[in-house]
């Protein structure tokens, strides 16, 4: 079992957003999480990666047998958890190369390995950039600064390729992408899939899910997972919206 979330509650400020999430993800699985705006999808991803803005009030989260909630965000990353941000952050003055080098070498330090030498690093960077067809010029620019919306999202997947996480969470990676960019991103994610890695895809649309085919689709609503199904659930939601699910659980 890669990830096990039990009865997870979390709040931001005084507002409770997650009200008891249960989720199990095994090696090699892809799960989609859908749900209306404000249902807690991004909060779930933020809590899993340890964003200090959110406070966990109840419940547990285990990642490959380790207590996720007791770990610092950087250690969660070292253990193999990756979040593709819905809004990647611009960091003026820090070059993409220095940023990635720091990330890779801190992970290696955590694993007890020597820092990667410069030649090896550049080679790795070149290989991984191809996966998402990212322009090499971006390597010398500051992190995400002046990147287009599409470049930012591709840059997220590039970082994922560099860090080779065990579990990747893609938080609305498709938002703001044109059809071609979405295909590049989806193909990139598919290329990085192995029987040992898993993926959580948060999205509003089934288009991305046609390209990254999940085995499970969950619907998150008011801080709980209210329905779980196969890929067909995404198609139903695309056609009929969420009202029928709300009715099923006894709401307007």
């Amino acid at each position, binding site marked *: 079992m890669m990830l096990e979330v039990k009865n997870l509650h979390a709040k931001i400020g005084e507002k409770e957003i997650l009200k008891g999430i249960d989720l199990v993800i095994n090696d090699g699985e892809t799960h989609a999480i859908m749900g209306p705006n404000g249902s807690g999808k991004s909060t779930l991803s933020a809590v899993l990666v340890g964003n200090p803005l959110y406070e966990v009030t109840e419940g547990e989260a285990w990642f490959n047998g380790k207590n996720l909630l007791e770990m*610092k*965000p950087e250690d969660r990353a070292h253990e193999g958890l990756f979040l593709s941000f819905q809004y990647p952050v611009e*960091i003026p003055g820090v070059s993409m190369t220095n940023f990635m080098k720091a990330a890779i070498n*801190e992970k290696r330090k955590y694993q007890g390995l020597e820092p990667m030498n410069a030649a090896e690093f550049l080679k790795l960077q070149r290989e991984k950039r191809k996966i998402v067809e990212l322009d090499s010029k971006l390597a010398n620019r500051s992190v995400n600064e002046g990147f287009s919306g599409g470049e930012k999202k591709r840059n997220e997947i590039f970082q994922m390729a560099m860090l080779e996480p065990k579990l990747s969470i893609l938080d609305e990676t498709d938002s703001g992408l044109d059809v071609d960019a979405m295909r590049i991103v989806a193909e990139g994610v598919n290329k990085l899939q192995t029987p040992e890695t898993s993926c959580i895809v948060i999205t509003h649309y089934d288009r991305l899910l046609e390209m990254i085919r999940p085995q499970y689709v969950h619907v998150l609503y008011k801080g709980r997972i209210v329905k779980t199904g196969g890929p067909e659930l995404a198609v139903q939601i695309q056609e009929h919206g969420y009202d029928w699910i709300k009715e099923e659980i006894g709401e307007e």
Partner: protein
Amino acid sequence: MASEQQYIDLYEQARQMVFDHAPEAMNAVRDQAFEDFKAQGFPSKRVERYKYTDLQKLFAPDYGVNINRLEIPVDPYEAFHCDVPNLSTSLYFVVNDAFYHKVQPQVHLPEGVIVGSLRDNPGFIAKYYARLAKTSEDAVTALNTMLAQDGLLVYVPKNVKVDRAIQVINILKATPQNAQRQVPDLMVNRRVLIVLEEGAEIKMLFCDHAADDKNFLATQVIEAYVGDNASLDLYCLEETHAKNVRVSNVYIDQQANSRVNHNVITLHNGTTRNKLDLTFSGEGAECACYGCVIADKQQHVDNNTLIVHKVPHCTSNELYKYVLDDQAVGAFAGRVLVEHGAQKTTSQMTNQNLTATREAHMFTQPMLEIYADDVKCAHGSTVGQLNDAALFYMRQRGISLAEAKLLLQNAFINEVIDHMQLEPLRDRLHYLVEKRFRGELNKCEGCKLCK
């Protein structure tokens, strides 16, 4: 508090000794400087340009002054060996406040160029000495003029370009090697006169370095005359220690179409006050004044600038950045004065600051005063913290909080350093700044540990 009294007493008692050990041109203005100092006294914090630094307090302790010019033996190469490497510059030393004759670079300066002691060029300096630095207008300048007995002269004749940068290491050292008894804390009064004739060019780098761990009080007056179409780069790097007080007054006069780059970098210090008075006297001149400050613990850094646009068509650009940690205090007060008739002036002043803790304090006061109606002037200031979203983004990628902070602080300061024209210094500063943020520069306090 009447901190000035001990200096008045000292002068009255030791006037003859001061005169005996100083060149005539410096003595010529000395009594007037004394009268001006006595009349003014040290400014209180109610005086506008001194409101962020308590001079009364800084000058109150009892420091020794080396009036008899006793030689304090020092091996300058050893003393400064540890942090500032050879930048392939022409290297000179000023030990405390005396030009150091024993070691001089083996390079040949272009013909007519002088880099040497004020003592060795008496006729020349009378024309320029203490003209820009008016003793009637600033008590520290008056005090410095009243006590300074030696200093550095830099002269570049017409149309001569000095390619190789001139590096001057200011070494503070109170304790002779193998000293048998305790020596007092030391006050030094440094003096620099720079004269660039028409079309002359030179790059100067001053590095302040403390070679032992006594308390030091260093006053400094730099006067720079920059002639028509001349170019001066003036870099001042301070890397001293927590027991050092530095009060520096820099005066620059720019003639037509001249260019000045002035950079003040405070990497490690105790209490520092840097004042810059720059005047555009000729049209078409430009200046770029940059400063960066990294301070922590109880360090105090106050930069005060005044840029006077007397004539039309001049451009001034200022960027000062501070990173303050622990209980450090920073101040920046900049004033740009555009006088009547100084049309087509372009001026930009920016001060940006990061405070890393709740106890760090930053005072910022950008000021514009405009008496012309066709100018383009802007000024702005920010004080803030590191971007939480960026920090978290980095941590999610596995970069530790400490390392993420370091990367962001580095990026912040690098904006200033990237502007620096002197390339070897720029590269070196990138390295030193990172080291400073890692806390590794502190370990080399006054080179004590390296010996």
